[in-house]
């Protein structure tokens, strides 16, 4: 394992030191591991807090700023943040209008955010939650942990963040966040596993021509192992899975996301095929993101996330945003 780190034990803290040094628009509480908007809390504005394991950068810290999150709580690598941390972030961004937790659907994230919500409530902060569960590779069922939350987190944070920035009340922010999640689907493909600093070796081994289909964002293997093939066919597999679950049509917000180790060139090649697929289905890639947004450390691969737009969602997507990883209109 060769990584640009100082020490396996200080990876998250050292990352936060870098984030603090790189982005004066953020206030980073390194000790408690919270990335705040510098101007938080904003009186009267609904606060948005998200968080999850580290190793998915720029998620979530890269989405803290004007028009998106008010704070992010990074846990250890692939480990949900702890309740204290979430409570501190929640009270720290509470401007009196309540706080929205954007939570990706993993047992750990759900339990820790739940505990934090109860504790925040004890401190008099109204907390609501949007649970993100967009990954169609996981069959949902009453008897399982349900679908994973992946790329749609970016969409929910951007769109709910825009509505909060516009001064909407918590109930409205929750409503739009859930709507985004309901209209979003994702599917991921890995060409390699990732290596956590603590484990020091890949979480699984793939042969020279093997890939994993339907992976999550924590280095867990996918639903099936398959033979590597050309980008066009990989995209077809991913898009068919999405389209089977929620037929693609109309104006679509599309993200082609790199898993951390994939060069941008390859993501553009994937995007070309995604756009062609949408066209075939009579849908259009009306809004687009291509790049590393929800990563898995150094994993090679990509995911596609789609969201069926409405006029309201498009308007909120287009609203100004100013964060380390998304920036437009300001």
């Amino acid at each position, binding site marked *: 394992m060769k990584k640009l780190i100082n020490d396996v034990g200080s990876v998250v803290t050292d990352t936060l030191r870098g984030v603090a040094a790189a982005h004066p628009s953020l206030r980073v509480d390194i000790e408690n591991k919270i990335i705040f908007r510098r101007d938080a809390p904003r009186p009267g504005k609904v606060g948005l807090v998200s968080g999850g394991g580290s190793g998915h950068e720029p998620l979530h810290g890269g989405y803290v700023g004007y028009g998106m999150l008010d704070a992010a709580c990074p846990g250890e690598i*692939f*480990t949900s943040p*702890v309740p204290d941390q979430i409570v501190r972030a929640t009270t720290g961004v509470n401007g009196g209008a309540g706080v929205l937790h954007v939570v990706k659907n993993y047992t750990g994230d759900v339990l820790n955010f739940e505990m934090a919500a109860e504790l925040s409530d004890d401190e008099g902060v109204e907390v609501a939650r949007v649970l993100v569960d967009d990954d169609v590779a996981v069959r949902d069922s009453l008897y399982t*942990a349900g679908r994973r939350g992946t790329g749609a987190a970016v969409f929910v944070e951007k769109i709910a963040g825009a509505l909060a920035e516009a001064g909407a009340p918590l109930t409205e922010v929750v409503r739009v966040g859930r709507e985004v999640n309901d209209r979003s689907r994702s599917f991921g493909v890995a060409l390699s596993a990732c290596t956590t600093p603590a*484990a020091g070796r890949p979480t699984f081994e793939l042969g020279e021509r093997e890939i994993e289909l339907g992976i*999550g964002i*924590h*280095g*867990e293997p996918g639903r099936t192992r398959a033979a590597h093939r050309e980008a066009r066919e990989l995209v077809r597999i991913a898009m068919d899975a999405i389209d089977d679950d929620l037929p693609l049509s109309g104006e679509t917000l599309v993200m082609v996301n790199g898993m951390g180790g994939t060069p941008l060139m390859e993501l553009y090649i994937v995007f070309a095929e995604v756009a062609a697929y949408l066209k075939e289905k009579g849908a259009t890639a009306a809004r687009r993101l291509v790049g590393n947004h929800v990563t898995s450390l150094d994993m090679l691969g990509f995911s596609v996330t789609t969201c069926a737009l409405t006029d309201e969602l498009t308007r909120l997507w287009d609203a100004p945003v100013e964060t380390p990883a998304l920036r437009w209109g300001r």
Partner: protein
Amino acid sequence: MDTRFFVIWMEEITAAVRAGRDHLTRLDAAIGDADHGTNLDRGFAAVAEALAARPPDTPGGVLVLAGSTLIRKVGGASGPLYGTAFRDMGKALGDAADVSAAELASALEAGLAGVRRLGGAEEGDKTMVDALAPAARAMARTVDAGGDPEEAFAAAAAAAEEGAKATVPLVARKGRASYLGARSAGHEDPGAASTALIVGALRAVATRRSPRSESRP
């Protein structure tokens, strides 16, 4: 069992988790996200620190402090689950200064209930419940049958180990491993394996009897 017994149990767990860390992480790499060993290692190191800094004066106090510390330090699924387990066990023991095997057995059941309430897992879902439930049953059964604490702990430890091993063929229905569907079969559940370490540590404390904490680094 007095407060000291429970402190030593925690120390024993801390040592066992440290020794088993990489093994647990490897189990988690196979069907999860390769952090279970580091998660628990971080958590129990913090428990040891907390106990040293603020030594509780009841068995229940030890367990509640251990549980709260796990919740505050571990994160992930196992943090709230184990944290709740220890807290609920501690709460079940109340203010008692000395605890009988029967009391500990019903505390273990309270801990199990906490895990089930929070995580919603049934036995057979391939989680820590698959080790914790048989351990609690075995302990209660042995105590009921008049066994002494040492026998009760040995039975619980053996049942936890067996329960953990029995997760191998299962298909996971809770936690990260459930995302793998049928591919989760063939691997031991990391949380069940760590439960076996935790219950095994109870047996170790009782068997050794002689407190070894002073000589540990």
